[in-house]
């Protein structure tokens, strides 16, 4: 029975289907009618750039384009490499279609300038080109050689990019307090994740350590952080540091908030990783130790690869939660996407245009989270491909038995 037939399988199912369809239709019609009738989208068009990058000074915005170009190139190469290895199983085409559709439809909707629209299209073309080229030549020895170092290239490019937009190479400084909008949300989320992941793994290992002091400290830290709401920790981070460090020396408020987010996310990630570590059978460690592997080698090559695989879904859940938690930064007065939107709405010119702005926000947040979970699903499939596929024993006769 096909999935559609199931909708009308019994009279009760049919009735339920009809009721739900009516409700959906009514809600859809209402939103549609509002979006193309009473809604006044000028507020979004006029503030598109602000929603994207906040108060980042316009003459310096080429730096953001450069960063975006760099990230797109890196992503294209990674994508191509994964495809070449057959490691991007299902939603490859779907992702291309989604990205392509967004690149074509969103910029005109947001009334971005013609130049910017063209730039976005070119970047999308670059992404597709790299994706195709790397997949095409993925078996080439030169490609294989740099593929192994690609993770390091990502890290260097990412940190270099941060430096570039903050004011490296003698460029005018743009203080992090002037970064804003969607860019700020994505940057602070990625930076926090990058730092929190290793910290979380270390905390999880510490919690299972045989050294009592290390174990107690890890447990105390994790439980303390998990016992407090993030917003209180953020306020604490903003104010406490100010008391402890004399005025000018305290790090920028953005960095303080990033540090708090990192510490917070690390505690939750540690619990996810601990779940994964618990799932690795004891025999794995014994086998590794019996081969002479030290504890460090056992953790690195035997425990963590298996534990992280198990913990991945929970960890992605934490990453998505973290992305959404960044909205709290608007409450402590930073201009993340939500904070930027609120500053737009505070302008008397745009009084009362809440629905329009918050709908756009919802779409942007949804896209960010959907991208995260799509990527993680691809990663999960890629990781499980190797071991869970066929468990049917191949029936080759054993030469020794002969």
């Amino acid at each position, binding site marked *: 029975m096909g999935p559609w037939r199931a909708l009308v399988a019994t009279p009760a199912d049919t009735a339920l289907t009809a009721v739900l369809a009516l409700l959906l239709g009514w809600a859809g019609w209402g939103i549609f009618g509002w979006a193309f009738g009473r809604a006044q989208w000028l507020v979004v068009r006029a503030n598109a750039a602000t929603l994207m990058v906040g108060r980042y000074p316009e003459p310096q915005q080429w730096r953001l384009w450069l960063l975006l170009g760099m990230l797109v190139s890196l992503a294209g190469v990674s994508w191509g490499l994964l495809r070449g290895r057959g490691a991007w199983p299902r939603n490859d085409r779907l992702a291309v279609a989604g990205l392509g559709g967004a690149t074509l439809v969103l910029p005109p909707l947001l009334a971005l300038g013609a130049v910017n629209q063209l730039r976005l299209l070119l970047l999308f073309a670059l992404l597709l080109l790299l994706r195709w080229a790397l997949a095409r030549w993925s078996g080439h020895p030169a490609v294989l050689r740099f593929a192994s170092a690609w993770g390091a290239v990502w890290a260097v490019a990412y940190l270099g990019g941060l430096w570039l937009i903050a004011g490296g190479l003698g460029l005018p400084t743009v203080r992090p307090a002037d970064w804003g909008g969607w860019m700020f949300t994505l940057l602070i989320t990625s930076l926090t994740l990058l730092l929190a992941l290793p910290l979380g793994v270390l905390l999880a290992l510490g919690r299972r350590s045989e050294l009592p002091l290390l174990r107690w400290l890890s447990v105390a830290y994790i439980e303390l952080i998990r016992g407090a709401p993030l917003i209180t920790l953020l306020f604490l981070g903003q104010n406490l540091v100010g008391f402890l460090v004399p005025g000018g020396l305290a790090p920028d408020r953005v960095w303080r908030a990033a540090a708090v987010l990192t510490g917070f996310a690390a505690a939750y990630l540690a619990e996810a990783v601990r779940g994964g570590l618990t799932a690795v*059978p004891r*025999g*794995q460690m*014994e*086998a*590794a*130790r*019996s*081969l*002479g*592997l*030290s504890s460090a*080698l056992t953790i690195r*090559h*035997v425990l963590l*690869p*298996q534990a992280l*695989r198990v913990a991945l879904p929970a960890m992605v859940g934490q990453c998505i939660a973290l992305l959404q938690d960044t909205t709290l930064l608007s409450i402590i007065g930073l201009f993340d996407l939500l904070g930027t939107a609120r500053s737009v709405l505070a302008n008397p010119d745009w009084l009362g245009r809440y629905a329009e702005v918050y709908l756009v926000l919802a779409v942007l947040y949804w896209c960010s989270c959907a991208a995260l979970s799509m990527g993680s699903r691809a990663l999960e499939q890629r990781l499980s491909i*190797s*071991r*869970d*596929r*066929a*468990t*049917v*024993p*191949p029936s*080759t006769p*054993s*030469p*020794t*038995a002969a």
Partner: protein
Amino acid sequence: MSRDESPLMIEACGVQKWYPNGFHVLRGADLQVRRGERVVIMGPSGSGKSTFLRTFNALEDYQEGRVVVDGMVLDEDLRQIDAIRREVGMVFQQFNLFPHLSVLDNLLLAPVKVRRRPRAEVRRQALELLERVGIHAQADRFPGQLSGGQQQRVAIARALCMEPRIMLFDEPTSALDPEMVREVLDVMKQLAADGMTMVVVTHEVGFAREVADRVVLMDEGVVVEEATPTAFFGAPQQERTRRFLAQIL
């Protein structure tokens, strides 16, 4: 040089161990194994035979007595323990292959990371070993794709890839379907024929009769009887051994 004069590879004297819950699992177990000897340890479950075996590569610690393996005393010294483990291979009841690594990578991990040997060289040796245990065609597969018997043969090859001087087997066929027991025992017999020093905890009487130089019966944490297979199975000296044999034969 006759076997009686070969150097001692394992010398365990009066080994006593209490589990953290207070259970006295080893109550003064003794065993000596010379180079090239094959010793089979039998005994009812709970007799401490696996625990005793696992003290030989320090997977289990002990509180009283002394275990000397290949001239090194197994005590609290961590460096000593890692050095011993490199020389002592172990095969487990549950195979314990690394499921996230291919068969070949299971073999390569320890020699490359611990002994720091060049990968290409170890690879050649690993493929030879896999050929010897009959898994050559599956080198790039993952453990989950192999049968139990094949997995256990890979586990043996993995231990051998470290070029150990002693091999310990902890009930290597107990978790296998009956039709796969033979392929694993055949590999072990071949290993014995090559002169490897082996200590095997097993219930396989046929293997003990055919391969062992000595058979040992353990019960309640001590060695009850120790004899050649012919004497052990034909004319056991101890009442406890007779009762045990009556149950398994």
